[in-house]
């Protein structure tokens, strides 16, 4: 039971938009429609809400073809939350939410106490009751969207359709709205179908995903089965890494853009191997007018990566968050190391994931590139590899790496080397 779609087809003249669409969903489930622009997500939402009529196929709610349900009865069963909604007319938030009661009020009647109670409940549920007398058009984007959710709730629907409901909102409002919707699904046993843009949000909040591609269903199932690296490459044309977030245990998709290194720069380059924000204090003291700077291998969202972005450093080898350095990235790092004049290693903890960074420094020495180590803490204090890091460290010192306990001394030495060139 719930909602089912069978062999749906829709097009304009000879342009096919959707074809062979079939899936079903039950109450208590959140289903996301994913796909790139033009894949037919919004069209499908419009077919489900009877704004458009299919060329072929049937849409059933509780086993009844929606073709046989009047617009008024459908509005009692199903509510739609659009991408964004605005009006320049001076209706109050309360009046906008009351419009959700339209299907229940007869032409010759007016709002009853029951309607006012339901509107109040819906507005309290979405935390909008305090703004009931405000004019709708004066509210912020997030507030407007919450009012629209309240209007949808006032319809007392069993099915909620959302058409990219958060695409115009800030991240905090996106989370707020998805959390509200998710709790509604649980408490009211609603069925939610949402067209969605953000793969990570979809993976985090939805139970099931239907992935559309060129008007047909490319894949459907649980997020982990649908959001695979090969599916995303095929549908979105983007290389990415799919990982599980160790903190939230939900999937996340990280697009990888192959960095195009700026080969044109003729300035001598310094390479910094860092992590955990330990390189930031060094990076910003290097005269970027005289010298070029490169970094590797850093995890995305490491504060060193943010500093590099702030300083507009282009040559950075990046790894997915919380992931060990991959072999490809290690090679990329070595390439940058070999092209530089000096390699600086900052004071970071070493685990099995970033052990390869020490090896990269060793390769520098083997190519007669000086390595300067900033050492605030002794290696024993930051070695999480049962001695492997310490072994590599000793090897670095034996091969001529210089250790400094002050940033100033290190950078002075670095400048002397660079000036000699």
């Amino acid at each position, binding site marked *: 039971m719930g909602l089912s779609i069978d062999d749906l087809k829709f097009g304009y003249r000879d342009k096919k938009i959707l074809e062979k669409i079939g899936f079903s969903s039950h109450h208590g489930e959140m289903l996301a429609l994913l796909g790139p622009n033009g894949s037919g997500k919004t069209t499908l939402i419009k077919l489900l809400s009877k704004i458009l009529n299919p060329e072929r196929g049937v849409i059933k709610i509780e086993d009844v073809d929606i073709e046989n349900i009047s*617009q008024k009865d459908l509005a009692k069963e199903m509510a739609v939350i659009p991408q964004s*909604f605005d009006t320049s007319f001076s209706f109050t938030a309360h009046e906008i939410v009351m419009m959700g009661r339209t299907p229940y009020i007869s032409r010759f009647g007016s709002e009853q106490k029951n309607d006012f109670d339901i509107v109040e409940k819906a507005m309290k549920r979405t935390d909008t009751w305090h703004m009931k007398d405000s004019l709708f058009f004066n509210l912020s984007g997030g507030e407007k969207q919450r009012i629209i959710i309240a209007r949808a709730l006032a319809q007392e629907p069993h099915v909620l359709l959302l058409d990219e409901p958060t695409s115009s909102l800030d991240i905090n409002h996106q989370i707020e709205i998805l959390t509200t919707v998710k709790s509604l699904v649980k408490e009211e046993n609603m069925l939610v179908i949402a067209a969605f843009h953000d793969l990570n949000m979809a993976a985090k909040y939805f139970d099931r995903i239907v992935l559309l591609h060129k008007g047909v269903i490319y894949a459907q199932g649980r997020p982990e089965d649908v959001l695979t690296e090969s599916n995303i490459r095929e549908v979105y044309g983007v290389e990415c890494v799919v990982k599980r977030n160790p903190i939230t245990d939900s999937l996340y998709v990280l697009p990888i853009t192959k960095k195009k290194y700026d080969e044109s720069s003729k300035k001598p380059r310094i390479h910094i191997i860092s992590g955990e924000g330990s390189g930031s204090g060094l990076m910003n003291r290097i005269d970027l007018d005289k010298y070029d700077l490169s970094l590797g291998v850093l995890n995305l969202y490491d504060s060193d990566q943010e500093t590099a972005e702030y300083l507009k450093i282009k040559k950075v080898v990046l790894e997915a968050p919380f992931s060990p350095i991959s072999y490809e990235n290690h090679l990329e790092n070595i390439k940058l190391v070999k092209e530089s004049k000096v390699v600086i290693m900052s004071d970071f903890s070493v685990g099995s994931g970033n052990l390869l960074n020490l090896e990269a420094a060793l390769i520098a020495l083997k190519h007669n590139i000086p390595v300067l180590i900033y050492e605030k803490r002794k290696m024993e204090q930051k070695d999480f590899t049962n001695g492997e890091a310490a072994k590599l460290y000793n090897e670095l010192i034996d091969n001529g790496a210089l250790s400094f306990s002050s940033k100033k001394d290190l950078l002075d030495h670095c400048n002397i080397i660079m000036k000699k060139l």
Partner: protein
Amino acid sequence: MDIKSKNKKRKWSTIIILLIIILFISLIISSVTGSAKISNIQILKMLLHKIPFIGGKISVDWKESSEVIFFRIRLPRVVLGMLIGSALAVAGTTYQAIFKNPMADPYIIGVSAGAAFGANLAILMGFSLSLFGLSPISLFAFLGSIIVTFFVYNVSKIGRKIHVETLLLSGIAIGAFLSAVTSFMMYIAGDKLHQMVYWMMGGLWTSSWADVRNVIIFIIVGIIIILFHSRELNLLLMGDETAQNLGVDVTRVKKILLAASSLITAFAVSVSGLIGFVGLVIPHIMRIIVGPDHRILIPTSALFGAIFLVLADAAARVVLSPTEIPVGIITAFFGGPFFTYLLLKRKKSIF
């Protein structure tokens, strides 16, 4: 129900009662105004005289001509002014909501072009065909507006759906074509030209009880139909898809509303010519005063449209007394500055 919405209901009834009182006063002012001097006392006596039982006790001390002027000329004219003012204002409000366009007025989809064409054709050809007491000019004006509206509507229909933007554009296109033909007819009209110009300026000087009888039912029924679709009009303002998702059968409601507002406009135009301004600006004035909710906007527009046209017509009779000027000149002359004043005073955007 909370206090706020109770207050809203009370505020609405106060406004309506106030407007009804003003309308009543306007009717009295307008019926005692005119180049023929008839005193208020005489009018009161004449009215009482008509009432059964007590009528016999009133002694007849007025001229018979006064009685003819009052009952046969002024009274139908005041009643007709009231009906036409209401019809134009309500039709204007409805069109503005359907088209979601502040420039929309009752004439926008070709009613005026069709009526002008029909009326001028009747004048030029000297038709003498009349029906139900309608003059040939009225009859042809009515037919012209109905045929043109029907044509424009069918041009803009795609499948089952009505495309309002196309409706607007085809209205403009056909309007332009017909006004070319109408201008040509005026060019070759010779001494009939002034009759055509007078008709197109609009006025109530030919009003008769026959006119009232022919339009009263249709205009009142049309306004009532629109009134009972006030909630749907509010939802149409929110956009077609939103309205549909909230349970409105958008296509059907639009058809009903277009038919009702076009019909009341056609009936109004057939007996009064093209009175401008009322249908465009009264809705905006009322929107500034009572807000965008059609449940209050439609009845107050009807009442204020009636008040405005009845008073404007009274002014048209006295400004250049004993001759009178077309009421369209008065409506625009006083309405324009008043509307500008409200626009300057308003605190928020109205459309």
